[in-house]
């Protein structure tokens, strides 16, 4: 393989693109979990976002509507989770699993009529710059607006949680819903809002897959990315910046190991395919060793059902 700077630039650009759905879904789930709600339905909400985005694009022929629609549909199915866990006080884990199963089945049913329809080209920004600047061009330019948003999101999330009042309230609810309630905070409202936000972000992550990354509908096209996003949140110890790092490592090694397979290295394919999972976990565990910080970032009430004394 010749050493070609531009090729490396293109490779990095591809890595960034592949990590976008993980960053979006994980950032959304991070906010949900910070409020103490464990929603294991990420995969289900993503795939619903993917099919509804694609279906809306085919029906309306309008990409903007498709993207907004995917977020709304992710949000709507997260309402199911919200009503069950916050109003009817069901177990978070079981409800989240059910949501994923529901999402996968539902999307397959809706998607029947959309298999094999070609997608529409999604507008990319600064395409000229991408082609004219070597190395940095393919890294920084020629991406969709959603990618830029995704790379900004972890920083926004970090700022939101640390510096704003609403962020503080979300962390407080995740720490101790009972104390928050005794302070006059409406815990149910806060948790509902976080669940809905998480749903919308998962919907957007799904739309990125079906509209931009591989513009078509394939059954089960999220392929476990929702679970990876969930794992990222935990291994990144609820820190948005570490989620970004984890998503890039995962995306990076996924792409690199594909190239290694193509080159024909004498390493078993199975081992190469497992590499992204192993490496992401190792790196995140290593960078999150500080047990004091973990304790401060972990939402103490994660997965606990909250009901108010009357």
């Amino acid at each position, binding site marked *: 393989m010749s050493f070609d700077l531009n090729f490396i630039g293109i490779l990095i650009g591809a890595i960034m693109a592949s990590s976008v759905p993980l960053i979006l879904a994980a950032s959304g789930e991070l906010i949900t979990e910070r409020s103490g709600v464990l929603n294991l339905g990420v995969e289900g909400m993503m795939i619903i976002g993917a099919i509804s985005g694609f279906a809306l694009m085919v029906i309306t022929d309008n990409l903007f509507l498709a993207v907004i629609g995917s977020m709304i549909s992710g949000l709507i199915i997260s309402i199911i989770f919200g009503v069950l866990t916050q109003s009817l006080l069901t177990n978070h884990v079981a409800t989240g699993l059910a949501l994923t199963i529901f999402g996968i089945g539902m999307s397959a049913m809706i998607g029947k009529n959309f298999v094999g329809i070609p997608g529409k080209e999604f507008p990319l920004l600064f395409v000229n710059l991408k082609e004219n600047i070597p190395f940095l061009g393919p890294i920084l330019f020629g991406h969709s607006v959603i990618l830029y948003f995704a790379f900004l999101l972890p920083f926004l999330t970090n700022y939101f949680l640390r510096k704003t*009042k609403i962020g*503080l*309230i979300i*962390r*407080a609810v995740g*720490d*101790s819903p*009972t*104390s*928050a*309630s*005794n*302070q*006059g*905070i409406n815990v149910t409202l806060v948790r509902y809002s976080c669940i809905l936000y998480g749903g919308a972000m998962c919907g957007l992550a799904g739309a990125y897959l079906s509209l931009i990354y591989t513009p078509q509908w394939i059954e089960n096209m999220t392929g476990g990315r929702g679970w990876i996003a969930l794992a990222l949140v935990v291994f990144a110890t609820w820190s948005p910046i570490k989620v970004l790092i984890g998503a890039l490592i995962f995306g990076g090694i996924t792409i690199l190991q594909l190239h290694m397979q193509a080159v024909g290295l004498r390493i078993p394919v199975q081992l190469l395919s497992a590499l992204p999972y192993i490496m992401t976990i190792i790196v995140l565990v290593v960078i999150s060793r500080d047990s004091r910080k973990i*304790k*401060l*970032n*972990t939402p*103490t009430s994660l997965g606990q059902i909250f009901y108010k*004394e*009357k």
Partner: protein
Amino acid sequence: MNTKLRVSEISKIYPGCVANDEISLEFGSGKIYALLGENGAGKSTLVKILSGVVRPDKGEVFLNDKSIKLNSPLDAKKNNIGMVFQHFNLFETLSVFENLSIDSDKKNEELRLSVNNILKKYNFKIDLDIPVLNLSAGQKQKVEIIRCLIRNPKVLIMDEPTSVLTEQETEDLFVSLKQFSDEGILIIYITHKLKEVLSLCDEVAVMRKGKVVSVSETKEEKIETLANKMVGENLSTIKKKINNFKYSEEILKISNLNFRSDDPYETNLINLNFSLKKGECLGIAGISGNGQSELFQILSGEIITEYTSIKFRDKEISKLNPRERREYLMAFSPEDRISQAAVPELKIYENVALNNFKSSNFFEKGLVNEKKIKEHSKKILSNFSVNTDNVEMKSQFLSGGNLQKLIIGRELITSPELLVCFNPTWGLDVGAINYIHETLININEQGKSSILISTDNDELLKLSDRICVIYKGKLSKIMDVNEVTPEKLGILMGGGSID
């Protein structure tokens, strides 16, 4: 500015229990009011109603003769009623300042200024930028108090504030509360500790079974009169007979007990040597955190140390685990009833079975013999006057006193030769304390021995035959109880010397 708070005919009924039954009380600023009662008397329900956490079924609250609605904690805040709960309402992972800013409408700089003023005025020393989980219980309580003070409260309610404090912290708290009271804040102080009522409060209302049974000025009351009102019967004063243990045989001999720990939160124990005779009670005093829990765990076999020798009835048992030690007729009642002594989620009879793995015939061929365990548990419940006969009940629904009776009963029903207990009456009400004390005296009279590790000096002086003090992992010399005075104990507990 004068504040008057009046509650009128407040009632709150929970399924199977009348928590508040037509409660009417009046409070005025400038005084500290005690609300006294045993656990379950309805004090906490009343203060939850006053702070808007719980809504009453009936009745009204008047502030300065105006009826106020307290439908949520926000309403209480709006009416300048501040509340410090027994279980802190703090966010452990957030910093002190974040905790304070969460329900404040002020800008951050403004808030920091007023918090710093409060810190200075009342001489509180708290770093505002460290997470709450790094604070001591006393400091956490101060954060709660500051949170109330920011809002210039007219009424400040303290729910059992000293249950988690050390003696020094308690003194500091009382100084602050008197200062608040002088500044015109009406203070309602909820407690079941009689001494505190007499030393701190001006007026006292006693509650029993959801009703107010007496309102009086504290200078007209004595410990005994208050205790009797609280329990509703005349408590017998228990007195220990002088034992003739001096002439009886030695049952336990500890030599060369040393313990080193890498955990900075544990205390190292340095060369402890003592022995115990049949029928004797050895009291070990000390301020908590001076090595008591390490000593307890070494005695019970939870920690095994290398060179220590523990001879019990002439057998070397220092390498045995707790279960094996129980088979040699030792028994243990740990400090923390909920997390160490019992599993709160398990039923009563299951908790009884837990420390009887090998003895008796509870288990046959790996199967649980429920019938036998239940019979055995019923016997414990009735012999040790636990206030229920339902062995199927989950242990977490027992009150502290009943749970402690169950735990001690579970240990004593096997007729052990030695009982080691650690703060057996911590957080209990007078009735239960009395019962536990009687039980502990009883076992000595039956010729069994006991080691009482306690932070309550009155209890130690009442129950022990000999007393020593543990300070920074070292034991003082062991003294006969009649040579010991509370003053001597105080000096030794502070690390002083009395020779």
